[in-house]
């Protein structure tokens, strides 16, 4: 485990994306996994708005399956044996939603990402970019209270990354869901982020718009953005 506590507080508006950047081991991915409930904290408190989802002193621990947080994994974690439709419908079926509504919501999600034609294709037959879209459609279909993206385009080739960044941003805005993304790429941070947070030893030490942070003298930001400052 890390030798520092995670103490991060931030606000993200609906349709807005906060991109977390920082050195390796700063706690960015841990933050996502702690928020989603996929990693148990040793102790402490996690709040989502006014809702306490973890509080060790009160014995509260809302399980991951009840947190209502969408998660797009770095390698997408699509279920390879299921079709695109079944992947996107998976979370809705677990919520016991009527089949007709499931169909409508899946179709809406697929349309949002322009992948309606892939609905009957098995997930293991998709290209990298298609997987990315399906993973996002699957996370959005459950209409989560919060969307988490872990290195959202890092598994794609350079050309696909560029296209996907703009699509991702547009899609998150349209979905009107607050989003937190973690990345190591300054291109991701600038293209996706409405705001950027810099994490250092478990704390957010800088938080602002890309333009504000581009002007910052913070040592990490200086190195992080050196490519585009020139």
């Amino acid at each position: 485990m890390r030798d520092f506590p995670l103490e991060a507080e931030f606000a993200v508006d609906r349709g807005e994306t906060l991109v977390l950047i920082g050195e390796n081991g700063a706690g960015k991915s841990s933050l996502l996994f702690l928020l989603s409930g996929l990693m148990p904290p040793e102790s402490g408190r996690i709040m989502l708005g006014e809702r306490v989802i973890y509080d060790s002193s009160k014995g509260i621990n809302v399980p991951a399956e009840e947190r209502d947080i969408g998660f797009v994994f770095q390698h997408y974690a699509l279920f390879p044996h299921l079709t695109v439709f079944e992947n996107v419908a998976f979370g809705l079926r677990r919520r016991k939603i009527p089949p007709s509504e499931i169909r409508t919501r899946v179709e809406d999600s697929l349309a949002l990402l322009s992948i309606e034609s892939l609905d009957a294709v098995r997930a293991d037959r998709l290209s990298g970019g298609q997987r990315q879209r399906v993973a996002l459609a699957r996370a959005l279909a459950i209409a989560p209270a919060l969307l988490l993206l872990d290195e959202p385009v890092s598994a794609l080739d350079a050309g696909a990354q560029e296209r996907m960044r703009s699509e991702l941003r547009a899609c998150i805005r349209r979905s009107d869901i607050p989003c937190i993304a973690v990345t190591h790429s300054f291109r991701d941070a600038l293209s996706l982020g409405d705001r950027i947070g810099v994490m250092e030893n478990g704390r957010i030490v800088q938080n602002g718009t890309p333009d504000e942070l581009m002007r910052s003298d913070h040592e990490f930001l200086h190195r992080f953005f050196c490519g585009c400052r020139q």
Partner: protein
Amino acid sequence: MNSVEGLVEVKRLRQSCRAILLTFGTGVLITLLLIFIVTPILALLFRISPDRFCASLSDPVVWDALVLSLTTATISTCVIVLLGTPVAWINARYCYSGREFVDTIIDLPLVLPPAVAGLALLMAFGRMGIIGRYFYESGISIAFTTLAVIIAQVFVALPFYVRQARASFEQLDTMYEQAARSLGSTTLPTFFIIVLPLVKSGLIAGAIMSFARALGEFGATIMFAGNIQGRTQTMPLAIYTTMQGDLNASITLSVILIIISFVVLFIVKFKLRRDVRF
């Protein structure tokens, strides 16, 4: 040719000789090993003509043993899969105190001599056994029945399945289970809808290995279940019994077991290559 070129040529020749010797040595080693394994099998296959093989199939001893073996091994495999799958999954995914101890105990029948396993089962489930006595008092006798054959087979074949199943679960990236949880799926639906289909081939391979082991079980069965035709005389026991009188029946049963072993190995190798992953 100057002296430098001469030295290079000598070095090249030496390397060629070494490569030829290495290839030859490896070839000889593999050939000897194959001869060692294949000769007894071929000797068995050539010992019986197809006519005699077919005639022996109608021998009641052969037929009874074949039916009993296939029936008991199938039941044992079902029991093993039902008991072994959750244990393998828990041991692959959850860390609890005593997990290594549980694993070691499950593996124990792998290294236990079959005769010891048979005697141990007799001491546990026999008429005077620590558990069997209570069944016996209630009018249920376990030892020397078909149930004893199944218990012996489950005992010796369980580790084959659990080891393979655990390895399959461990190889599966936990991100699939995490993704399912983040989408609102609880443990059991995740297991049945996501995990099981993704490790299906590994589990089938493990079940087939267990089936083969159960089919070939001899020592524990003869000690614990006896050697009664039609009730407890499985194929290996029938081979042992008929070998002293009717060698054709014995060879026929052996050939059937060889064929099953081949089929098992092929299916296992094929299945283990087939699990769907990204």
